């Protein structure tokens, strides 16, 4: 009576849409992240120019410096694309090179952020000093945390490839790391514009 199959034959379905489960969940995760950064950026915008005491953004920012580190981060998206292209052609050595390059560029960006934070704190801007410090450090800090996670993922992939675990067949793993990495870059474009470039 309770025949499990309604049809005549059994056909195992990999996925309904043809898209790998992991790729779909990564897109869903990035959608969720949009709301996360959206809320943080909204908080920054609501409190923009609302600090009662200094230091104020115009006293603090070194826009040419941050532009250079932003450029470094954007270039890391290029090397990420090259890493994925390499492994999709089966070129493991090329992928390793570009993975390390991406991780290093990300690390340079992080180093730049650490230096920037240190300088700002030396100028008297801290988390608790005023609304600008509160919103600036928390927004850019959470972005920095995301870049850090990305760098850890990139170097983990590199180490895994040294054990021979990353091949053309599972290049999807590299693609997923790339999706995350590009997202973190795109978010930085928005943050850089909103925080640094809009005139105060």
């Amino acid at each position, binding site marked *: *009576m*309770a*025949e*499990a*199959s*309604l*049809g005549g*034959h*059994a*056909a*195992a*379905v*990999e*996925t*309904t*849409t*043809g*898209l*790998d*489960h*992991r790729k*779909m*969940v990564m897109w*869903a*995760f990035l*959608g*969720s*992240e949009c*709301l*996360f950064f*959206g*809320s*943080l950026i909204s*908080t920054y915008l*609501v*409190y923009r120019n*609302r*600090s*009662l*005491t200094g230091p104020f953004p115009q006293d603090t920012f070194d826009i040419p410096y941050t532009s250079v580190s932003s450029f470094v981060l954007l270039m890391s998206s290029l090397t990420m694309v090259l890493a994925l292209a390499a492994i999709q052609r089966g070129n493991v050595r090329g992928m390793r090179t570009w993975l390390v390059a991406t991780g290093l560029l990300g690390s340079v960006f992080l180093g730049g952020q650490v230096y920037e934070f240190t300088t700002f704190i030396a100028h008297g801007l801290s*988390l*608790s000093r*005023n*609304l600008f*410090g*509160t*919103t600036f450090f*928390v927004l850019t800090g*959470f972005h920095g945390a995301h870049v850090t996670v990305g760098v850890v993922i990139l170097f*983990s992939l590199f180490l*895994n490839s040294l054990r021979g675990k990353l091949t053309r067949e599972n290049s999807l793993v590299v693609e997923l790391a790339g999706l995350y990495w590009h997202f973190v870059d795109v978010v930085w474009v928005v943050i850089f514009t909103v925080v640094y470039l809009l005139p105060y």
Partner: protein
Amino acid sequence: MATAEHAATTHQPDRRRYEGIWSWIFTVDHKKIGVMYGVTAVCFFLIGGIEALLIRSQLMFPNGKVVSPDQFNELFTMHGTTMIFLALMPLSVAFFNIVVPLQIGARDVAFPRLNAFSYWVYLFGGLLLNASYLFGGAPNAGWFGYANLTEVPYNHSSYGIDFWILGLQILGVSSMAGAFNFLVTIINARAPGMTFMRMPLFTWMTLVTSFLLILAFPVITVALVELMFDRLFATNFFNPAAGAEPILWQHLFWLFGHPEVYILILPAMGIISDVLPTFARKPLFGYPVVAYSGVAIAFMSWGVWAHHMFSAGLGPVANAVFSVTTMLIAVPTGIKIFNWIGTLWGGSINFKTPLLFALGFIAMFTIGGLSGVMLASPPADWLENDTYFVVAHIHYVLFGGTIFGLFAGIYYWFPKVTGRLLDERLGQIHFWLMLIGMNVTFAGMHVLGMEGMPRRIATYPPGMGWDTWNFIATIGAFTIAVGMLVFIYNFFASVRHGQVAGPDPWDGRTLEWSIPSPPPPYNFARIPIVRARDPFWVQKYGDAGHGHGRVVPMPVAGGAHDAEEARADEHGEGIHMPDPSYYPIVAALGLAVMLAGVILTNLILGNPPGTQPAWPPSWVAFVGLLVFLYGIYGWALEPVSGHSS
């Protein structure tokens, strides 16, 4: 059937097997995880219920002295937080787990280990939140935690708020992990022919709820992070002295909070949309409209949040706009109600307990919806805001609505999970006690609110005209408690001695009734091919409608592999189920310890609340981080048989 079941039993020599309790702790089987979710959620439901009974005992008579005002604040905060985050949402997730893969013809969810992870994170988050009772005091600022009542200058007598902030963040991780899983499972793991417009309504509403969860929880996560930073690192997010506006908390909280209301109600609506057709022996009236109404509600739920803030002074334009959007959202809800009634009309109705609870849902939720439309009008809201009228409204929606829907689901799917029916007579007693109890408790609260009794007051003097209705409400609360005792007895008695259900006790319509009860670990010996809406009904009785019998081809990835598996199936060796894994529970434990460590270090060192955590990072949090990383890396590198993740 028996032969297919027998043939599908697989024997893999390298298979890790665990016995007894370990088979539960390391399981990645969606049905077992669903049972754990359900049992845990019912336990938290009882804890939240005991908190409610203490509240009602305190308010039974004027000048009540059962608890102190401080304890009363803790009780109503924990009652709301527990019921919403630890009882109702996880009970819905229990049904997602148990039912959705069966309804779409899948062998498991898309990410079985992620599924186990979300359960353990939920459990640890719930335990952490309730541990606050043992460590100096529970949270005491209401389930909405308005800043700046939650800021250190106004709330430093205990770590309660810190437990609340971290507990909710941990629970958010669990909810989002679960939602990602069900989103992908429903979109990407359906059986061939199971198109969107053939999906059972419960699966539909699970999909909609998953979208709401992954989009709404980041918003409250940010609000909680900002509050946490204010408390621990002296930032200024909600500090008016630095130029900030605490109303930002209200905006962020309710931007999450209103979708959250629909996260709570949509799964229950899905349950009764499956229960009503089964017990009316008729297809769901207006199936596409019911499905699309759920989608419309989800969209509109993002545009109504400020109706929680009418009395905050946003101005007449904002109030008018949000008043209109709020009244509009009643339209798709009303459409659903009429379609449910249309489903019953002319049906051959079988009055079993699941149907009674579903009918209770329709009636009670309609009352709650109507008082909601009253509250949507700002002038009326100003009168009723922060009175017992709102308490009555929320309980008609969440008790009369969500809880009745969830109990309909418990009675409906219990035989599928256990293989035995819950006792029908006890079930009906349970239903009537719940229905009478909830109306006795909450109906009078409308009057109390109109008479001006504020919410969240620990006691009241005699002679306010509130004595009678408060006394009656307390009687009602204990009537509900008696109903719950009947249910608990019924549960334990029926698990052991209940009537054996067989695969299809209700003459069901959807795929879960086509397989044995309880289902085998692999669910379907052969993946079904779906040719119609209500596929099992059509299989049993033929297709009365037209145009439903068409097979819709679904793209299938990895054709060669499939052919191989199909061949193997015929020899009964094709079903690879994912192995049990201990990494999910390790990662969940690490995550909980890491976040809890932020306060635990201060607590262990005996620092007052609001002290900045010691730097270098709090050592408990650091230990948690190491455990978490071990879990995540082990998880990522663990070889997996059968499934991708």
